């Protein structure tokens, strides 16, 4: 069975844990890779540094992006990916606690494919992850490899 390869860009280790658990509880076949900031995300996507080998950095089906990141921020990474001809096809889903209208607008302007708010309640977070995983795994046709 096909699995969804997800690149999670998230600096908060506790949020990473909760997201991993949510994916597990949602019960979808997945391969969740985690990077801690924008620079690491670009290194991963360009297979540079620690991510030279394709096994350590499988091309993600979707990127889950937190906006509030140290160093290269979420908006910046979003723009960098969407302006890169080789990477722009990868859907980016912003997953954040920020309800700031400017953040929402900027994210869509830069080419985000969806903007999701992280609920505080874990059971609802699991629901969101479940819906999201199901949608990208089963409902949509993803861009072909290569």
């Amino acid at each position, binding site marked *: 069975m096909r699995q969804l390869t997800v690149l999670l860009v998230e600096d*908060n280790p*506790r*949020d990473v844990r*909760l997201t991993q*658990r949510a994916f597990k509880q949602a019960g979808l076949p997945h391969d969740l890779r985690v990077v801690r900031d924008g620079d690491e995300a670009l290194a991963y996507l360009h297979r540079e540094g620690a991510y030279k080998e394709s096994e350590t950095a499988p091309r993600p089906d979707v990127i889950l992006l937190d906006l*509030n990141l140290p160093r290269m921020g979420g908006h910046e990474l979003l723009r960098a990916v969407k302006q890169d001809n080789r990477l722009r096809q990868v859907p980016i889903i912003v997953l*954040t*606690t*920020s*309800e*700031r209208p400017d953040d929402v607008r900027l994210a869509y302007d830069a080419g985000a494919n969806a903007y999701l708010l*992280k609920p*505080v*309640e*874990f*059971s609802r*977070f699991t629901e969101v992850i479940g819906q999201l995983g199901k949608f990208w795994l089963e409902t949509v046709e993803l861009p072909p490899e290569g």
Partner: protein
Amino acid sequence: MVRDDQAWQTTTAQFYGQLYACVWQNLEPFLGASTTYELLSLSGQALHEAYPFLARLQWSTVGLDSTSLAQAIATEERAHVEAGCEQLLQYVQGLTQEIGGVLFAQRLHVATEQLRLAFEPAFSRPAAPEEVERLATPVQPQEAALPLFQSMGQQAILLYRRLQEQRAATAQAQAALQKVQRTPPSPSEMPQPLVVPADLARSEAFYHSLFDLSPDGVIVADINGTIVQANPRAAEILEFDSPQELIGSNVIELYVHPEDRAVLLEQIAQHPRLEGRRGDFRTRRGKAIIVTASSRLIDYEGQPCLLSVFRDITERARLQQEMQDFAYSASHDLQAPLRTFEGYARWLLEDYGNVLDSTGRQLCEEIIDDALHMKKLLDGLLEYSRIGRLHTQAVAVDVRKVLDRVLHDLQLEIADTGAIVHVPESLPTVLYPEVRLTQIFSNLLSNALKFMAPGKRPEITLGYTEHERYYRFTVSDNGIGIAPEHFGRIFEIFKRLHTREEYPGTGAGLTIVKKIVESHGGQIGVESVPSEGSTFWFTIPKTEAPSCAS
């Protein structure tokens, strides 16, 4: 000319004595004694030539000396005296309007007309009763406005004096000119007929002074954007050295987004008056500023021009933006740990519930409970900071539709409590942002449902009354009520009168309602008897109040 018998003089002196006393009593509390004195004696002076007896009236800082009135008219003819006295009243009325505005003048007019009616029978004018009836007593100027009135009064008197000097000088110059030219005087050079005060004060000099003194920038620009007139404040705001320097330059160069000018022209073609529009400008020295402007299309020296009055709100906008950013980041950053609390406590319960005893599990439940409560507090804070800042368009809203929706959303609570809700047969349509009105009713109604008295069937009555300038809505319940000493406290953010166990909630609801009501020019309050019930009331102005710049 046969003189009437002496009786008319007594009556006339009595009547006008009372009338001017009434004028005095109406003006003095607002303008102060010295300005009132100046206003009355100046008015008299202006009419001296036509009615010399007015010069014999003695005014002091406590009003008219009534014996001077009796003496002044002793040798005059009745028609002449009455005409003079009426002219004086009109003159005062006109100046009053210039100083205090139409409402203030109307207030005086109502008072004098009432006096006229009360003074049987000689001085009642045929049309007066209906007129007085028609003019409902205007609102009293607020205490706080008194210093403003007084200073405006002083300014107006000052301007008036200058104007008179100027007129005298002009008249002299014209007379000299006539002599030189030896041509018959044109109608405009004829001796001026009796000067009507309103016209006088409205004259160019008066408005020119207003223009120069205005704390707001004023600019007149033609359709192409060329500035044809500007006041000192406009130059100051836009960082030009003088208005002269500003005149001749093009207003489009000052726009941050030049296309905004075209949009403005398009809109003004549809609505000749635009109020409170926000715009981004760049000063001559390159500083970015934000202004709020009101514009209208005028005829300026024969060509259509745009008159704009504007105020620099850069600092205010910056503070608002800062406040908004603060609220969003606070809400955002504080939520991250909450997610951990809730998620981890839930995790403990799910995966380690069997190794915890009942107290351990209870503690986890309470962490979850508090984390979710704090999320609600943050939402309340964020909502509170949003009101009056985000663009919420006032539209014509049918209050019934709003109530129907709110009651529909609350149908579960209504069914659970078995509450009876009375909604009035007719409800008005108001000018308000629909989402805000929904918030108000939703909050007040859910409070009424929440704070019900145990063992009593909740009964909620909605009502409204229409007033001249506003609608007043009420939401009454038969719940637990509020002690009077807490009336103020319940509107403060996060202030609660009960524990969360007794009545759930964050304590933000009424604060939000109050802020909404007040930011739309209304008032809110509560009347309550403990253990009998509460009535919350709020008002909505009939015309849209100037909304907060956002």
